[in-house]
């Protein structure tokens, strides 16, 4: 063990005063113990990952003026969020969709593929960007909403809005068994 030399240096009668050569090694075990205790404490009490904030802008609600511009149904994709982590999308209007409503899942092979494909098609045929309307049903959960907004970010869809769902669309979800 590397104790500090506490015996008074030399002091023998007469002769040269020769201090004893003490070892310079200090026992660090206790110090290491203490440090790991502190590390454990800090690890358990900290939040390393700060939460991420996803910005969301909603359209102004109670606008009195009725000069809302018509959205061309040829470039509108409507995404209905249903039950069981499923969604359904179609292009155009609900009573005469330009592409048949399709039940799809979230993620890479689900809605993302559809959005990318359709936005390319719409860009080619109309020269304008796709507009996505997100309509969440009462059976959808919050995660679904965040997921679909995340897909908007990933696919670089600039025009999208969260809109209230209408009765015919709920019927559509019911028909396909995801409501």
């Amino acid at each position, binding site marked *: 063990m590397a104790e500090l030399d506490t015996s008074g240096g030399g002091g023998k009668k007469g002769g040269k005063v020769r201090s004893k050569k003490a070892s310079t090694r200090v026992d660090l075990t206790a*110090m*290491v113990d203490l440090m*790991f205790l502190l590390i454990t404490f800090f690890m358990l009490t900290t939040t390393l990952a700060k*939460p991420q*904030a996803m910005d969301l802008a*909603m359209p102004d609600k109670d606008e009195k003026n009725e000069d809302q511009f018509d959205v061309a149904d040829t470039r509108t994709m409507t995404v209905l969020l249903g039950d069981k982590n499923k969604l359904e999308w179609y292009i155009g209007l609900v009573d005469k969709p330009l592409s048949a409503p399709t039940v799809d899942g979230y993620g890479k092979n689900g809605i993302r593929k559809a959005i990318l494909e359709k936005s390319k098609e719409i860009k080619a045929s109309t020269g304008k960007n796709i507009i996505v309307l997100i309509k969440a049903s009462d059976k*959808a*959960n919050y995660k679904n909403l965040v997921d679909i907004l995340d897909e908007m*970010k990933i696919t670089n869809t600039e025009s999208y809005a969260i809109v209230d769902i209408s009765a015919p669309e709920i019927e559509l979800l019911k028909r396909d068994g995801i409501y």
Partner: protein
Amino acid sequence: MPRVKVPRKSTHIDMTAMCDVAALLLTFFILTATARQPEPLPVDTPSSTVQIKQPTTDIATITVGEGKVFFGVAGQTVRARLLELMGERYKVGFTPEEKERFSLIESFGVPIGNVKQLIAMGGADRMKPGAQPGIPVDSVGANASELYEWIRNARIATKEINNTAMRVSIKGDSEEEYPTIKKVIDILQAQEVNKFSLITSMEGRD
């Protein structure tokens, strides 16, 4: 036969390197540490690929989970002023001591009538699950809902004290049903807060 003598070695290990590593780690954790605040309503936030960090000042957080809504605003002076404004609005008198205690509560979820009771509670009791029933989000007759008033007055208080616009963020549980979230969004939109953020945790892009 002569025995083979094994020289006795010291069992002592050099701790210097281990001590260095420990010190390095410790320094790292101390410098990156922000103490975790205990939350009265723990929620499991959904993940997204968004990389923007949430600001820590001039922000109000609406926590939604289990059908309950909790509210919290950043800044102690803002919170004290908020309680004062809410007291005026609902004709409840709060003593300076109560304001002081309230300013230390990060997030809460009780109807206005129970705020006094909440302030009197100890920190540990407050954190018990079920101790706080959530802020009412439904409007009563012509009166706006309590959550509406909390948000509105928090915005006023933040503007008065920090002279900046307050940002609103919604922290929802993944499994929370959409209608509850919708109600909160409607309350925000009713006071023309059309831009807010949703708090998510990080996720890799696949």
